């Protein structure tokens, strides 16, 4: 297998053994955790900053604008400058807020996204934890963030925030179903919930191609539902700046606001990487049947790049949605879920199970 040259398993195993040689097992685990934590933190910050910049540029180009162009060449340091500003600005104290919950809410949101990112396979062997129920874990953990949103809305003691938080609650509860069911469609095909196994199973072809129409429908539903779950437009009802000014984070300022802001982009990254992993083959390169030369060239692109390319493609799609569509109303949002996505999804699961039973997939 040519892409073994990019296998990170040996690297991680070497780090593991050398640490265990020098330290007691307990401290070796602590050191490993520290390294992983640090790496994820750095990765998180970099991806967050990049995504904010990318979103601004994408929306600017779609709107015939230049976007950020002042700080650095093409404004690439704009988000860094914004981050520094957000770190320095005053944290406005809210007199009648529930102080403890108000302060803890941004951390809940950001920790939830941290936890989710740890289970994602970036490349072969480049994987913080490879749980055997990886898909399930990611769905469960990423849904925790809404608790933070709800707490933020409640504790701000602001009417706009409360309405935004309640909308967010209703939204997450319903769209979690669609996210789960659309992933189940693929799990039926893959026969496993372990993310690394799911990626491996796609070495002969991505699930979106292997699973015929049901996999494609599941992919579309997953895109819609995950856009809704991350509170992004056209489902950004929790913020809804033309109705609720800023929704649940109306009262937040400075770094606490930055946490919400960053978490929104990271959640988008997480759902995009799940979509890339589950439907588009994760870090697997793109292969076409018997085109050996083509496939060989594709293999030399590192898997990490493949992974990022797929993820950013999906992120671009989500940005494209946001900057094209008007926002839905809360009842339409629920109608879309309960009257359209859920029934289609259920039929789709049965359809997929049937295909798998008959062995009609590739």
């Amino acid at each position: 297998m040519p892409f073994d040259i990019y296998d990170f398993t040996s690297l991680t195993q070497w780090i593991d053994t050398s640490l265990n040689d020098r330290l007691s097992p307990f401290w070796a685990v602590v050191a490993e955790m520290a390294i992983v934590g640090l790496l994820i933190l750095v990765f998180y910050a970099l991806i967050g900053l990049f995504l904010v910049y990318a979103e601004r540029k994408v929306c600017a180009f779609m709107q015939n604008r230049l976007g950020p162009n002042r700080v650095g060449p093409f404004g690439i340091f704009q988000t860094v400058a914004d981050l520094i500003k957000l770190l320095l600005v005053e944290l406005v104290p809210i007199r009648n807020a529930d102080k403890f919950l108000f302060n803890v809410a941004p951390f809940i949101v950001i920790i939830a996204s941290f936890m989710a990112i740890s289970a994602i396979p970036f490349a072969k062997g480049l994987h913080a934890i490879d749980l055997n129920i990886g898909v399930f874990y990611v769905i469960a953990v990423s849904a925790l963030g809404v608790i933070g949103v709800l707490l933020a809305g409640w504790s701000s003691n602001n009417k706009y925030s409360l309405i935004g938080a309640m909308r967010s609650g209703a939204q997450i509860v319903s769209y979690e179903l669609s996210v789960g069911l659309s992933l189940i469609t693929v799990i039926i095909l893959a026969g496993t919930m372990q993310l690394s196994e799911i990626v491996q199973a796609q070495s002969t072809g991505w699930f979106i191609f292997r699973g015929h129409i049901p996999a494609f429908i599941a992919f579309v539903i997953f895109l819609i539902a995950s856009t809704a779950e991350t509170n992004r437009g056209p489902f950004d009802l929790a913020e809804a700046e033309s109705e609720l000014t800023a929704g649940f984070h109306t009262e937040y300022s400075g770094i606490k606001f930055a946490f919400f802001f960053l978490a929104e982009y990271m959640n988008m990254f997480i759902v995009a990487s799940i979509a890339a992993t589950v439907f588009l083959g994760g870090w697997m390169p793109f292969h076409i049947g018997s085109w050996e030369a083509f496939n060989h060239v594709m293999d030399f692109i590192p898997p990490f790049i493949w992974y990022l390319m797929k993820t950013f493609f999906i992120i671009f799609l989500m940005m494209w949605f946001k900057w094209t569509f008007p926002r839905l109303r809360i009842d339409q949002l629920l109608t879309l879920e309960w009257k359209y996505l859920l029934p289609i999804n259920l039929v789709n699961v049965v359809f997929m199970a049937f295909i798998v039973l008959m062995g009609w997939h590739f």
Partner: protein
Amino acid sequence: MEEHLKNSVTDGQEEYVLNIGPQHPSTHGVLRLVASLRGEIVTNIEPHIGYIHRGIEKMCESLTYPQIIHLTDRMDYLSAHINNEAVCLNVEKALEIDIPDRIKVIRTIMAELTRIQSHQLFWATFGMDLGGLTCFFYGLRDREKVLDIFEETCGGRMIVSYNCPGGLMHDIHPGFQKRVKEFIEYFRKTLPEYDQLLTGNVIFRERTMGIGKLTLGEAIAHGITGPTARASGFSCDVRKKEPYSAYDRIKFNEVLFTEGDTYHRYLVRMDEMRQSMDIIEQLIDNIPEGPYAVKMKPIIRLPEGEYYQRVETARGELGVYIISDGNKNPYRVKFRSPNFVNLSVLNMLSKGFKIADLIAISGSLDLIIPDIDR
């Protein structure tokens, strides 16, 4: 007032009172709507206005007629030219001056350009109210081109002050016709994009269809005019009913629908942009030669009496009611501004709908707050 808010309790349930405005992204100015909610359902809306009340009517009483005109720009700043025209027509009617055709035609072209740019901004902000931010930029991008035409000829972009009693401040710029034709050609190409982006969009249709229905009877009884009324089937276009300037010699359709909901209020404006382009195309090549202004006396005194002139601005009927006592200053000026009247149905329309619908309805009424407050 605050007393009233505290006591707003109905059938044992306390209402959730939400203060939308005076600073809010979608009130388009300093309008304050005190919304009583049950859940997300609006039970009552109470508009509080007057945040930019400047007393234009009082100021007019101490100004001469040419001086009044530039104040009217500041009422409905998106229909500035049409507002100017209203006062000028009223003064000219009172003095019984014959206006040369050239002035009439230029005024009409300018008025229709004003209508187009006003509806472009409506489209832009309406899209933004519904959450489609990209509409805002496309709308403003195209509006810039009209504003450039204004700037080249009038010297101002929004606040044009181009009319004066007896004619125009100066002649049209030599490049005016070319620029207008270029704009029409450009806008005929971009207008279908508006439809693709918003009009046909399934989310947009769901958001606006059947929301905030205004019946024909209600529209008439409440004195609603303009696109808002025409969406309900009330044929009230002053350009047709009581033609002024050059409207009596051109062919155009009055856009009428009968549904009266938010979607059709939007559609009326989209179609009016097309009608306005047709009107301009009929006139732009046939601007008659002649003077751009009639020689007026240095001090204009209206004969004693009362004068009422109405024109069709982008939002409805603007009535200018002047009572003159023969002096160089009017005795009393009343502006019957379309937005002021249209605001009065907001409560009626939005009862029973959700907050998001309230934003859509108030967006579709296309309120300009300085025109309400005057």
